């Protein structure tokens, strides 16, 4: 994955970048399967590697496949990115170790979900139970976000098309 990230950063041909990021998504999905997060892996594989690759290729068809040369050397953004990455890595050092059974997340609500989800909701897949029932408000918010994204795309692109038509008539 690190090699793929370097390749994406160094590559100037945007078609290659799109294909590489699709491969990155598949690797990410594999990692998520290894972490037993199959629901998320499925989403990553279908959205990240599937739909977004198609949409990005469609966008590239419209705007050309060669990345523009940067006007200045981007040292300041690089420095900011490195500082923030360092801070994040420093922050992860304070997290409990991976799959530590005494981590706060495992002793607070997780046992309740794992023990009571089947009895309370009748749904054996705990991920679905948490997503749709215990965290129903969050999922409603997510659906609204997806709806807003669709409405935004409709608003932006349809206005462009209409203006183009008006230009033809004039």
């Amino acid at each position, binding site marked *: 994955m690190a090699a793929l990230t370097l390749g994406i950063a160094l590559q100037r041909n945007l078609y290659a970048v799109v294909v590489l990021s699709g491969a990155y998504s598949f690797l990410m999905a594999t990692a998520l399967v290894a972490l037993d997060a199959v629901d998320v892996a499925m989403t990553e594989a279908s959205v990240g590697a599937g739909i977004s690759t198609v949409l990005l290729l*469609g966008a590239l068809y419209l705007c050309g496949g060669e990345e523009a040369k940067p006007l200045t050397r981007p040292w300041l953004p690089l420095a900011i990115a490195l500082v923030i990455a360092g801070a994040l890595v420093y922050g992860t050092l304070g997290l409990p170790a991976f799959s530590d059974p005494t981590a706060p997340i495992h002793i607070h609500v997780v046992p309740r979900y794992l023990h009571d989800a089947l009895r309370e909701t009748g749904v054996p897949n705990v991920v679905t139970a948490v997503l749709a029932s215990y965290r129903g408000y969050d999922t409603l918010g997510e659906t609204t976000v997806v709806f807003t994204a*669709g409405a935004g795309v409709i608003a932006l692109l349809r206005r462009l098309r209409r203006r183009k038509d008006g230009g033809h008539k004039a």
Partner: protein
Amino acid sequence: MRGFLVLRVVAKLLMPFMLVFALYVQFHGDYSPGGGFQAGVIIAATMIFYALIFGLPAARQLVPEALVETMVALGVLIYAGVGVAGLLLGGNYLDYFVLAHSPVHGQERGIFWVEVGVAVTVSGVMLKIFYMFAGRQRSAEDE
């Protein structure tokens, strides 16, 4: 895309299986990985596949734009409607326990309809975005 006989035949063979898999992911999401979001994406991917092979006009004929735009809003309305149904039946907003005679059945019913709402909105939005991009592509070719 008139000449690509193999692609067209394989696409016609594959599409039913993709749709059935989407439905499986949707309705079996209670027992296995999956749910509304993933199923919606698979449905949208099936339609995008169809549009890539048979062309955008054919896809627009099969799933018209008006239907897609309705789906975008309908999914959120289904989801929010489940919440309102809970309110009307005497519970809190998004409270599934009151939707059926026993609380567990109410939960199952609530989760089912909520997932349906998510799937409808997600597939509608994905398809709409694709239509928008591909439609501009076509108008660029016309010029």
